[in-house]
């Protein structure tokens, strides 16, 4: 090869330009590595120690997890999560889908109605909890109103009934999130290919059966996204319980997030609290991993 005039010398400024993307991302990378994964690991370590009011690093193996399994309150919180989560997700989905389908029927003032359904999502769970705590107030809330309106025998004291208090959480959470499910599904319905529906019409299918057999099944991805988000809200639910019941009466309406908070920060049992946080992470992962796996697999199929 002949000798060639070399212009390869990059100026320092060029070298900086080449490094800039990495430099810009570096702080965020540090934040993610430390603030996300480092802290998770830290909490994980704490869950194997006997930390109480202050962190201590005396290794106690799975003792905290064993204590957690023996803790009656943890089991109530976990069962409540299943009950609350299950009902909250199911009802929100049903209500959301129903409203979306109804709103899809060339409704006048659709935008206005949609705005009403969705506004609770803009509120803090604390505000929602405060409002519903008042609405469900035994003696002054809906309880009294319906009796005032002539329903003499009406009683609504679920908020102080240990067996029914979880339903109060469900009602408030559904009120807040079902409009969001509606919005997701309405967007999904609008993206369904019109020609498929025309074809089904030509084939003589009725409107309800077009929705049930063709339109809704084609919204599977929307369904799974909604399910993911609702499950995520349910597992992280803390503010709603704090505002509505503070876990009570007793600890009848405790949820794992509430359990973790009160043991870690009020009762000074950091080790136990950390163990409960790690189990919550496990619960999220057990939903997230299959979901992401199927998402990725579907992408590969596309």
């Amino acid at each position, binding site marked *: 090869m002949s000798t060639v005039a070399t212009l390869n010398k*990059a100026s320092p400024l060029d070298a900086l330009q080449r490094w800039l993307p990495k430099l810009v991302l570096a702080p965020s990378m540090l934040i993610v590595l430390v603030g996300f994964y480092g802290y998770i690991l830290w909490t994980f370590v704490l869950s194997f120690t006997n930390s109480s009011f202050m962190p201590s690093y005396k290794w106690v193996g799975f003792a905290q997890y064993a204590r957690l399994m023996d803790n009656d309150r943890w089991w109530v919180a976990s069962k409540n999560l299943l009950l609350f989560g299950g009902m909250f997700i199911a009802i929100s989905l049903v209500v959301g889908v129903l409203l979306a389908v109804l709103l899809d029927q060339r409704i006048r003032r659709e935008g206005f109605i949609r705005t009403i359904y969705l506004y609770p999502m803009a509120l803090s769970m604390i505000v929602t909890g405060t409002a519903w705590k008042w609405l469900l107030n035994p003696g002054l809330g809906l309880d009294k109103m319906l009796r005032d309106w002539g329903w003499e025998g009406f009683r609504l004291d679920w908020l102080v009934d240990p067996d029914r208090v979880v339903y109060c959480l469900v009602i408030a959470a559904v009120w807040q999130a079902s409009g969001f499910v509606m919005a997701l599904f309405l967007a999904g319905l609008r993206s369904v290919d019109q020609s498929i529906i025309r074809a089904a019409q030509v084939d003589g299918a009725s409107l309800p059966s077009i929705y049930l057999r063709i339109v809704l099944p084609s919204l599977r991805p929307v369904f799974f996204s909604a399910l993911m988000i609702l499950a995520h809200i349910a597992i992280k639910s803390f503010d709603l319980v704090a505002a509505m019941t503070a876990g009570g009466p007793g600890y009848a309406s405790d949820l794992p997030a509430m359990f973790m908070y009160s043991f870690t920060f009020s009762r000074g049992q950091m080790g136990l609290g950390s163990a409960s946080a790690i189990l919550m992470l496990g619960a999220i992962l057990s939903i997230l991993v299959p979901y992401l796996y199927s998402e990725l697999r579907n992408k590969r199929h596309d």
Partner: protein
Amino acid sequence: MATLELRNVNKSYGNGLPDTLKSIELSIDSGEFLILVGPSGCGKSTLMNCIAGLEQISGGAILVDDADISGMSPKDRDIAMVFQSYALYPTMNVRDNIAFGLKMRKMPAAAIDEEVARVAKLLQIEHLLTRKPGQLSGGQQQRVAMGRALARRPKIYLFDEPLSNLDAKLRVEMRTEIKLMHQRLKTTTVYVTHDQIEAMTLGDKVAVMKDGLIQQFGTPQQIYNDPANLFVASFIGSPPMNFIPLRLQRKDGRLLALLDSGQARCELPLGFNVPGLEDREVILGIRPEQIALAPAHANGLPSIRAEVQITEPTGPDLLVFVTLNQTKVCCRLAPDVPTQVGDTLTLQFDPARVLLFDAASGERLGVVAPVQEGKDNVAQFKGR
């Protein structure tokens, strides 16, 4: 105005992936128009990005005016590019789009205004200068994209499939305009396309690429008449070259290709004589326009009778499909040939123009008969 030379350019993304570019060797003179053509995924766009500096090469050298630029950042290479999607800055109006590169190069405002005016006049987009790209038609956006490149007065222009987003009519118009522009400005240009008509009409030189390799590099005429292998022969030309698989025989010392239409047989003597080709599986390549109707009086060229199976009038031509050696063969005849499906036609071939390829490797076989020798034949042969 600059020469461009690629020496043994390699591009690899690692991770055990096959190399995207393999030992690319190309060289064009100042002012020449080079076409990189090939199917999608052949590496032509990667090669263009490497020349622009948008991607780093893994090995080799890129020389502009004999100086290696492969380590330089894109802005220092003095190269302008027209993108397939035009890549006009959506929030800037046409004037700012054209002026952006000049501003970045710290050109004085007065000079920028002058340059924008010159380019706008050249491309007849003066009335569009205050519009945003979103308000322009595809053809207008195309002009602005070219204007942005022209304003910079770079050493080299790169065009990355600039016409593929236009409709058919506009594409032909813009093709002519690009050619005119190049004839006027005489700037070295590299033009990537997958359209073999653009490749043939625009280029001074054409590089046909496939799988990161240059299959053939030459003038459009060389590529068309003298393709290096089966791939090049099949890629260039529309309708494409016919490929008839057969076995060669040797009779009286000459190589013969045996054709069979079902109705008749024909021994086609080949114009060259290479030992060792007999009894081998080969592919005979013949372009549709090199098959003609046999004249009423014999002219010494081999001919064969065959049944017409499909006719496709295209306007200027009549494409007639017959079957030879169980292969569908397209013949390009004059539009006034009175024929219809089921007719039997007597067709003849010019043995000098027939090409041979190895069935296994696709490589060209035999020596090419020089085009000049067959000239008289071809003229007569066209038979219009």
